[in-house]
């Protein structure tokens, strides 16, 4: 199956508040293709959860068009049931009765779907074996989150919604959860996840969207975002400088990199250039060095972390807002 699985056009979500309606989502567009893993990022209050809840059919929208697998999630009755059969949801605040065991819970939930996975398969998949027959009330927070995930995938969903799936996990549990999510992706499951962890988005997502104040700030692959919005740090060792001092070299570099935004610092014999256009800097610097008779060696380029991109984006957005 190809083509969009989730389509959102001009979504607006408003809440009532004592000071009048509060716009949590303000004209959002979003398209997610089959088999894609999409991570929605944003600070608290950016509108991620509201957006996802509308797409899941758990929250009414003020206006806009939303389709999941060709179905409006606000539908009711048989249409709604059809959609529910094909999606899986992990919510931040949902739970299972503490008096039963994970195996009992999975048996019960699997009864409601048309073509569920087997309980045994899901217990293996989500690594619940060791506590499948313990009361849920005795499980740790991380173990319960794994059960949430298990309940969400028992129906063999085509689309999986994960609202902060690894919040509260220890590092090894997070790794395991990531592996599980990656396995589901191999099965062709489309996944929409929200997360606070940038490394999670970097590791799991094909595409990332950063939301701020109810709007989509920027969208792209993690690599795109790093390239377009982050500054890489290039570092190179300059030897055989002959009669040229550091100031001469800086002057030469400034001329060579004319019109390319960059910033230069020295660390011992190494020149560090911070820029978003690494290719341009590389080309011009190499030809300038050749003509000036300098030897450049030991190149390194460090790309920014998604976290840096995210922080930069949000800082810029705040700055842009301070005028109104």
């Amino acid at each position, binding site marked *: 199956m190809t083509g969009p699985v989730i389509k959102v056009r001009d979504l607006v979500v408003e809440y009532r508040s004592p000071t009048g309606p509060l716009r949590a989502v303000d004209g959002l567009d979003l398209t997610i293709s089959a088999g894609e893993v999409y991570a929605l990022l944003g600070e608290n209050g950016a509108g991620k959860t509201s957006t996802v809840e509308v797409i899941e059919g758990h929250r009414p929208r003020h206006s806009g068009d939303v389709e999941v697998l060709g179905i409006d999630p606000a539908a009711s009755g048989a249409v709604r049931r059809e959609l529910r059969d*094909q999606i899986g949801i992990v919510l*931040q605040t949902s739970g299972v009765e503490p008096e*039963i065991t994970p195996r009992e819970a999975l048996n019960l939930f699997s009864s409601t779907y048309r073509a569920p996975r087997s309980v045994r398969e899901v217990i293996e998949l989500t690594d619940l074996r060791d506590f499948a027959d313990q009361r849920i009330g005795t499980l740790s927070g991380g173990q319960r989150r794994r059960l949430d995930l298990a309940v969400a995938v028992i129906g063999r969903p085509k689309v999986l919604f994960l609202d902060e799936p690894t919040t509260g996990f220890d590092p090894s549990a997070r790794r395991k959860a990531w592996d599980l999510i990656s396995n589901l992706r191999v099965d062709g499951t489309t996944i929409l996840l929200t997360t606070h962890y940038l490394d999670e988005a970097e590791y799991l997502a094909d595409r990332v969207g950063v939301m701020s104040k109810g709007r989509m700030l920027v969208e792209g692959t993690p690599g795109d975002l790093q390239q377009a919005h982050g500054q890489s740090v290039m570092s190179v060792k300059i030897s055989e400088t002959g009669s040229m001092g550091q100031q001469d070299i800086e002057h030469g570099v400034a001329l060579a990199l004319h019109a390319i935004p960059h910033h230069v610092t020295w660390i011992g014999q190494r020149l560090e250039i911070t820029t978003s256009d690494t290719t341009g800097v590389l080309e011009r610097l190499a030809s300038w060095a050749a003509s000036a008779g300098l030897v450049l060696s030991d190149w390194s380029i460090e790309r920014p972390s998604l976290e840096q991109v995210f922080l930069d984006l949000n800082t810029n957005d705040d700055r842009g807002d301070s005028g109104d």
Partner: protein
Amino acid sequence: MTESQAWPQAIRLLLLQTSHQLRLFLRVPVAVFFTVALPFVVLLIINATSSERVLSDTNGEWPIDAFVCVAISAFTAVSATFTNLANMVPIRREEGVLQRWRSTPLPVWVLVGGHVLSAVVIAVLSTVFMLGVGVALYGVRIALTAVPALVLTMLVATVSFAAMGMAVAAVVPTASAASGIANAIILPMALISNVFIPMEDPPSVIDAVANLLPLRPFVDALQAPLHPMNPAAAPRWGSLGVVALWGLVSFVIAVRQFRWNAAPGGSTRRRRSRPQ
């Protein structure tokens, strides 16, 4: 493909939900205690401490211990339905259980039906137990001719009180408020409904109020077919009508006011994080 597969049968889903709720009930010791054990102990105490009196009602005379036994049986059925649901459903809402089910293809009526049906089963079983105690110890007699009226009375009353429980569950803000509100409703009502202490010559205002509330009519309707001298073969339609009306109004309130998730900030449980 999933599309070509049939949906699971509704009746099977309903039975699974019902047995799930029954299993939960048995695993919550406090629910079992308040629903079954407490009324039983209260019955033993009241009848051990009351004098050997005889009561008269419209159909003739009752030994007081048989009268109280049937009244407390009715109260047990109310505990199993009204009190039980009014307490447990808000707890499940705050645990996120209702929200969890809302994410599945399970039809809402099956989810609610499982809650109601399990409550009815618990009510019927505990009432049968209490009446059995009455037969064994207090001279309660169950005439064969009265069985149809008895069954109909139990059915109408348990379903109606379950609806009342769901209505309270729908409107209360939090789970901790729910148990207080449910008790604040049921205990004063029991006191004026001949449950624990049969009232002889009550003030007419209290009598009139008790007859408009649902518990006293249920007690009357359950007592009529179990009357030791003169068991009624026909159900007490008037009393059952009052109970059913309360059930119907409650049903409408429950449907209109039902909430899947805890009110923001109104939860008695600490959430992992606040929703945005």
